[in-house]
């Protein structure tokens, strides 16, 4: 391949890489996307879409022997299963080192489109409070970017992807460019009316999702089949496959190579310019060298970090762009904790279709200022899901015959409302990834080692999320509550919001990237996946990755045009 023809190489085709490909090609740049996963086609290859349980092997309960052997980590995800199998990383073929006493679950896709096919589709803007948090309380370094800097890029992204939601005017959760919000369950209306009366300060809104409630940019409105993660042939949820990659292809400037995993980057004698991207063909083992004027690392937080660390050289002895020593450190995720309430309201109401969304309770703790009764910094929001329990919850009772059978037929005369807190995670240096000194993968690349522990701050916030959930659920009319005491917590990585290991900042001594996601030490290198995140906020991060990616592309293209990068 004549690699000199490329202006930019984008590593990864997930939510960040897809945006880099779209923005750069639309600015007239010739772009090569290198994706380690297999190629699939939008729509045509979503083989699990609309399948019934009875059509799947083991009625959809998975081949346990295969899943234990090949998907020991990935199988823990709610989205893993027979209909989504083709999207996930094979943990046997592509392993990492999980430290038993500091466990971290690395959830990875391995397909063109990456985790944009599997993501939860919740999209929330960060607020000024989020960007100022590190500077205000001293955890982590200050963000070099303000809300005002990124707000236009949020709009730019939202107009393209399509975000349904309700404008509320809340400072801590700025409104997006919205399509109409989704509709409510009867129980949600009942609960909401009571909460607004008894706990009026609780900010509740319809979940904001990158799922279309009306036709948008050539994609169809949602048909409410339910399990989005199987893939959506109508493109009703945003993914690289449905949206950014087709836009990039339409320019004629895109070349996409699947089955190519990037091993390392090489630089020139000054150390300030990447000259080559080394990749391995995962099918043949053949190694290839690609070059372009600029490189965007969008391989996902841990994978991009692995590439930088594995690119160590005389000029960059601790890893490329790592003179600060921060690369690999300050790994964050969100801590998710579930609390539920049982309701006997609206039991004569059911639903048509499956709404792939819930309500959202925005941060109300330490909002604006530190609450006197809070023994933790920062905050959390709740994603709230209604459930109508049925036979799956009740069949484990005694009895046989017609009465037993009949007892399984109708929905239970209750509703469950589950409040799942997503808690902001502080950047702690001891939460980290690094290259194993001796163990290597099948291509000879050193394995990534993970070490992660929750701090007291997240633990205290988790306990508080139960106390507050109890208040909210009782105000909503719950007759029973089941509140987590946060003694047994999810493992880091389980929220699949890993970020922060190549953070941006103002000072090259304490950060790896500048405010345009450009490496302080390498002029033509940009990193725009979750690894650039300097703090974690409590809201879902993908929208912010997309906005920063688009902004970095705008900057890089301008720099290229002025001859600064090439």
């Amino acid at each position, binding site marked *: 391949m004549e690699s000199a023809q490329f202006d930019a190489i984008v590593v990864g085709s997930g939510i960040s890489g897809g945006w880099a490909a779209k923005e750069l090609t639309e600015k007239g740049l010739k772009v090569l996307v290198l994706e380690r996963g297999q190629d699939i086609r939008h*729509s*045509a290859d979503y*083989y699990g879409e*609309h399948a*019934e*349980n*009875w*059509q*799947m092997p*083991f*009625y*959809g*309960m*998975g*081949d*346990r*022997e295969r899943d234990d052997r090949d998907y020991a980590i990935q199988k*823990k995800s*709610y989205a893993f299963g027979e*209909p989504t199998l083709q999207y996930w990383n094979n943990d046997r073929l592509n392993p990492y080192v999980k430290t038993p006493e500091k*466990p971290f679950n690395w959830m990875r896709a391995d397909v063109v489109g990456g985790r944009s096919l599997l993501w939860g589709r919740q999209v929330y803007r960060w607020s000024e409070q989020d960007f100022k948090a590190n500077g205000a309380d001293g955890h982590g370094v200050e963000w070099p970017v303000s809300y005002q800097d990124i707000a236009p890029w949020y709009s730019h992204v939202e107009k393209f992807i399509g975000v349904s939601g309700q404008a509320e005017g809340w400072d801590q959760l700025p409104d997006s460019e919205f399509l109409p919000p*989704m*509709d*409510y*369950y*009867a129980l*949600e*209306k009942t609960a909401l009316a009571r909460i607004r009366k008894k706990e009026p300060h609780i900010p509740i809104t319809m979940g904001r999702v990158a799922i279309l409630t009306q036709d948008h940019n050539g994609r169809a409105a*949602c*048909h*409410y*089949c*339910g399990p989005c993660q199987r893939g959506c042939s109508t493109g009703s949820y945003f993914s690289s496959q449905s949206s950014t990659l087709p836009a990039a292809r339409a320019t004629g400037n895109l070349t996409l190579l699947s089955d190519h995993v990037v091993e390392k980057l090489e630089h020139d004698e000054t150390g300030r310019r990447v000259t080559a991207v080394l990749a391995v063909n995962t099918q043949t083992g053949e190694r290839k060298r690609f070059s372009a004027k600029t490189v965007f690392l969008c391989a996902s937080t841990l994978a991009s970090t692995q590439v930088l660390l594995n690119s160590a050289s005389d000029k960059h002895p601790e890893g490329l762009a790592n003179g600060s020593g921060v690369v690999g450190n300050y790994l964050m995720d969100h801590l998710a904790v579930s609390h539920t309430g049982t309701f006997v309201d609206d*039991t*004569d*109401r*059911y*639903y*048509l*279709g*499956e*709404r792939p969304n819930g309500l959202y309770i925005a941060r109300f703790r330490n909002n604006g200022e530190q609450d006197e009764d809070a023994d933790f910094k920062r905050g959390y929001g709740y994603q709230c899901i209604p459930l*109508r329990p049925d036979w*799956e*919850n009740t*069949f*484990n*009772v*005694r009895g*046989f*015959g017609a009465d*037993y059978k*009949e007892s*399984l*037929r*109708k*929905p239970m005369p209750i509703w469950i409302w589950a409040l799942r807190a997503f808690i902001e995670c502080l950047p702690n240096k001891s939460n980290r990834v690094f290259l194993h000194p001796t163990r290597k993968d099948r291509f000879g690349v050193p394995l990534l080692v993970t070490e992660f522990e929750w701090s007291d701050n997240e633990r205290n916030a988790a306990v508080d999320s139960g106390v507050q959930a109890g208040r909210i659920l009782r105000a909503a009319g719950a007759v029973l509550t089941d509140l987590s005491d946060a003694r047994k*917590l*999810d*493992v880091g990585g389980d929220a699949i919001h890993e970020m922060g290991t190549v953070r941006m900042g103002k000072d090259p001594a304490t950060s790896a990237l500048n405010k345009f996601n450009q490496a302080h030490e390498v002029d033509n290198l940009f990193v725009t996946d979750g690894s650039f995140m300097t703090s974690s906020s409590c809201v879902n991060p993908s929208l912010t990755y997309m906005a920063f990616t688009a902004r970095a592309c705008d900057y890089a293209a301008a720099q290229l045009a002025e001859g600064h990068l090439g």
Partner: protein
Amino acid sequence: MNRREFMQCAAMLSAGTTLAPTGWALSEEQSKYLASRDPYIDQVSPELFSEAQRGAVTAAADLTIPRTDTPGAVDAGVPRFIELMVADWLTDDERIGFVAGIDDLNARGNGDFAGLPPSAQLSILEALEDEAADSPWYNFGATLRLWDSEAPFICQFKELTVLGFMLSKTGSKEFLRPNPMGKFDGEYPLGPDDAAYDKSTLLRMIAKEAG
């Protein structure tokens, strides 16, 4: 498959048939779709159980979920599902334990559980539940995990019977009912005699163990 073919395929499926219209057959590409497949239990032939074991499983499944004004476990192919799951899904140790449980049914039935009158069969099943009564399998909420290897045979048998019935084509369409896609209405009325929907995703597949 292009969009038009996909919609044809989808229309065919929603019409409840997997027979292709005249002059139009599923291509190899289309047949890889899970949604265009025949039921799992019709695709694989189990050859694990002896005739006596198969007879006991069939009789016990029929007693657990009999045919009433709606189809029962045997109509829905539950015995075949159980044999497939025991053969291919259970671990070696689990399989040995489960098959021993079936043999115990026959032993309690003088070598031929299926040959007993239904009332005698029921007495045996109820006795097994009496013996298992202290198992945590009966605790509320205990089913939100993939599988309980430690549960007594009668509990595991009941669980496979219920799953095999509720997730079958027959059970999901003729005992439960489909939730039609197309639009969302969160206030749709539920009549006093209305069945629950079949489901796209089992809670047990979502509520997995942390670690």
